[in-house]
């Protein structure tokens, strides 16, 4: 199996006009998320590598951010006053590239180079090669300190630009995050938003079995953050929360987005095996069918 341009079929969706209604925005994000998932599935299946579980866990968040929240467009990708988004869980680079392509930062057919020799589309994002990437991540626990640094620069500039960083929940086991959270709170970086992809799975097991993060809201609150919990697959909730930050003046925001790894694919969802498994032909077909079937996939937040 080889990935070719034939597999890069996603339409470029772009942004809606600024004054579109909330309902229009939500529908647009939902369509984007659907297209991004379909395209990302093809990338992983045909390239034979990737982190599809974490990709699908994060795509609704990415689609919301790039589709309606971030003040950044392909034209302003180098504007110093752009909002910054840092993908700290860099192993879902495939989801990021696909999202960037969906919103016009990257030619869709360039996705066909994913993981190929000399491609800009490495297994982890490289800001020197891909427009729209703000930080070279991959080792966990790096994005949050970098985001704090950017939020500090904005504060020094007395700028209103915002910084968003998406971290994995397992990733929060890295102490560097807690160092950064203390500093963010000390410097009252209320234009910094940390989004946790709270899928309760890490590479080899559940977070609970490995090194439990709970009570996560209490941890984040004790580290000086305003904490909000959302359904991380509900575009409306995500849009409302991510565009409303800060919630408490002077406090950075910690959004716990409850998600499922592999959502919404029946056989992937909440299944640790899909951290970096590659769907075979049958699995690929089934996943494609599930994604293309009408209706918005249902996600009920688990009892914690």
């Amino acid at each position, binding site marked *: 199996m080889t990935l070719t341009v034939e597999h890069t079929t996603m339409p470029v969706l772009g942004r809606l006009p600024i004054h579109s209604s909330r309902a229009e925005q939500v529908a647009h994000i939902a369509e984007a998320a659907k297209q991004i998932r379909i395209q990302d599935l093809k990338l992983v299946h045909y390239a034979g590598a990737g982190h599809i579980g974490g990709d699908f866990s994060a795509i609704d968040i990415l689609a919301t951010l790039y589709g309606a929240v971030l003040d950044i467009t392909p034209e302003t990708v180098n504007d110093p006053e752009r909002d910054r988004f840092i993908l700290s869980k860099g192993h879902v680079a495939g989801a990021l590239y696909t999202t960037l392509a969906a919103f016009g930062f990257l030619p869709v057919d360039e996705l066909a180079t994913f993981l190929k020799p000399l491609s800009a589309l*490495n297994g982890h994002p490289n800001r020197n090669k891909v427009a729209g990437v703000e930080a070279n991540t*991959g080792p966990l626990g790096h994005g949050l300190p970098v985001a704090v640094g950017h939020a500090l620069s904005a504060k020094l500039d007395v700028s209103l630009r915002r910084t968003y960083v998406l971290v994995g929940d397992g990733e929060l086991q890295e102490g560097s995050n807690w160092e950064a959270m203390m500093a963010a709170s000390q410097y009252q970086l209320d234009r910094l938003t940390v989004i946790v992809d709270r899928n309760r799975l890490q590479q080899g097991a559940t977070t609970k079995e*490995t090194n439990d993060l709970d009570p996560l809201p209490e941890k984040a609150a004790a580290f000086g953050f305003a904490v909000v919990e959302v359904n991380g697959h509900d575009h409306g909730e995500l849009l409302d929360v991510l565009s409303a930050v800060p919630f408490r003046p002077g406090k950075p925001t910690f959004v716990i987005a409850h998600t499922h790894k592999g959502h919404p694919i029946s056989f992937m969802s909440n299944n640790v095996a899909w951290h970096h498994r590659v769907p075979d032909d049958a699995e690929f077909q089934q996943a494609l069918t599930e994604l293309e079937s009408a209706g918005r996939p249902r996600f009920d937040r688990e009892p914690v």
Partner: protein
Amino acid sequence: MTVVDTSIADQPRYDCRDAYVETLAELAHADHRIVGVVNDSVGSSKLNSFRKAFPDRLINVGIAEQDMVGVASGLANGGRIPFVSAASCFLTARALEQIKADVAYSNANVKLCGMSPGVAYGELGPTHHSIEDIAWLRAIANMTVIVPADPVETAAALRWAATSEGPVFIRVSRMSVPKVYGDDYEFELGKAITVRAGDDVTLISNGTVLWRALVAAEQLAAEGISARVLSMPTVKPLDVDAVVAAARETAGIVTAEEAVAGGGLGGAVAETVVQHHPARVSILGFPEFAPTGSAGYLLDRYGLSAEGIADAARKLVKPSS
């Protein structure tokens, strides 16, 4: 000791992590003090069977490398013999001060096993390439650095480490390799092994590149160039005598390793020859952060293929004008 040398490129290939887990389980059965310590790397270290056999003796601290190495040092204080198993890139870069202070300077009986080192993670990119690990750990006092070349040597080095007191770093390759050694191989610390005799030029290698050096030697032999191939599993302490003999007896040395060009095996050989017997050394390795590509692609691209090694050797034997 037997060296498997006929048409090595055609032999079956092995992921050394399999030898790693088999040996670790064997050692753990024999010695209750042995424990594993991991950073959510049970799967990537292939330790699922170990966990099944010794559920209490596989300590998973989560994604937290500093804690992992500190915990290992504390376990050693309590009389355990911890084998830390984590991707070499994160183990060495993220926990370097713990390696220096809690392991090396503390002289703790901790075995650091750097899994999937070098460019094994290929397309995952430079953040996941562990090409600096050898240079980094070699710079730390009281640290033994071992880079086995095949599953036999991996197992032998692990057995040695389990019974020797003190800090050890062992690279455990993921990129598959043919067997270089027969099953009678015994690991001796700080000793080079002449895996192929020769007088014209010397190839010094270890890890996943050693068998490529053997193939290079065959190619050179076909051209009438007799290449000595030294396997150098111990980068620190280095076998000074073997390096000096190579410097004295052949036209020059090519070092070839799955690591940054400079500071590692090549650096150690260079420092040895200039201080004992100046000679030409060609140091092969990665000179930069690699672009996207598979492990095999990257090795070839940077001359760590049989062809690349043979080329470097030819230049030493017949310097162009």
